[in-house]
């Protein structure tokens, strides 16, 4: 009886040790990913007609590249577009300062404002979805169209 119990205990110890080892390796592998990933954050939006996404705050006092696109898969519509700009969340000026390109050949966009609702740049084909100033430190996606649109805003810093 004692011998069979001993035979059971020893493999259990090794199984437990193996579980600890495997979990540790998994945690280390999981932790290594964010440490090795560059400073790039994607915000997938889905905005109903007339609504805004949540505010997105870029890192302050460094130029942040914004890549915004509309993929149109939610409405299954031909309103696909993309745009590019840099923005500075300036703690000195207490406002956003930006410079870039409107979508679909809309020309240059540049400006600075802390006022909510100020247009920053269009990100779709029809120029009904744009980035707008939320407050002195953040912006949001605004949908002025009649359908729900989705896409991604990517920030690189």
């Amino acid at each position, binding site marked *: 009886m004692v011998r069979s119990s001993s035979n059971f205990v020893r493999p259990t110890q090794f199984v437990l040790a193996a579980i600890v080892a495997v979990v540790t390796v998994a945690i280390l592998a999981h932790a290594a990913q964010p440490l090795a990933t560059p400073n790039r954050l994607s915000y*997938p939006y889905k905005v109903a007609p007339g609504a805004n996404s949540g505010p997105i705050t870029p890192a302050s006092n460094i130029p*942040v590249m914004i890549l915004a696109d509309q993929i149109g898969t939610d409405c299954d519509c031909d309103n696909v577009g993309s745009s590019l700009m840099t923005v500075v969340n300036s703690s000195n000026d207490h406002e956003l300062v930006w410079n870039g390109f409107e979508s679909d050949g809309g020309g240059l966009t540049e400006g600075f404002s802390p006022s909510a609702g100020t247009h920053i740049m269009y990100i779709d084909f029809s120029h009904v979805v744009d980035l707008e100033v939320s407050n002195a430190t953040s912006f949001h996606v605004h949908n002025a169209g009649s359908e729900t649109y989705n896409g991604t805003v990517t920030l690189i810093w």
Partner: protein
Amino acid sequence: MHQNGLSWPHRWRSVFFWVLFATGLLTQAFSPHLKIKNNGFVVPPSLVSSGAEVQTLELVARERGIQFLSAVLTLGGAIGLALCYREVLLGRRSTQRDLASGNNVASDDPGIVK
């Protein structure tokens, strides 16, 4: 002497490393749970749908900090446990080796009560 043949300092040391290991695992729960896709972070749908403000720099820094802390705690706990239980895990083999070489099989580890 303890019933299992382990001294109290040894027992407390092993409890400490188990707690350290478990804390490393639990720390994962406090991360923002950012996904990594196409070599970049992706804000989770739960945060997007909540409409909460996304502070990009703080969010990424928090994810990195918590993952680093979790890795350090888990690795520290695992190494500590390996040292604590080395006699248990390697005992039989070292005992056989000691017998073959004619050495005394009693352990020199102060944690193991002779």
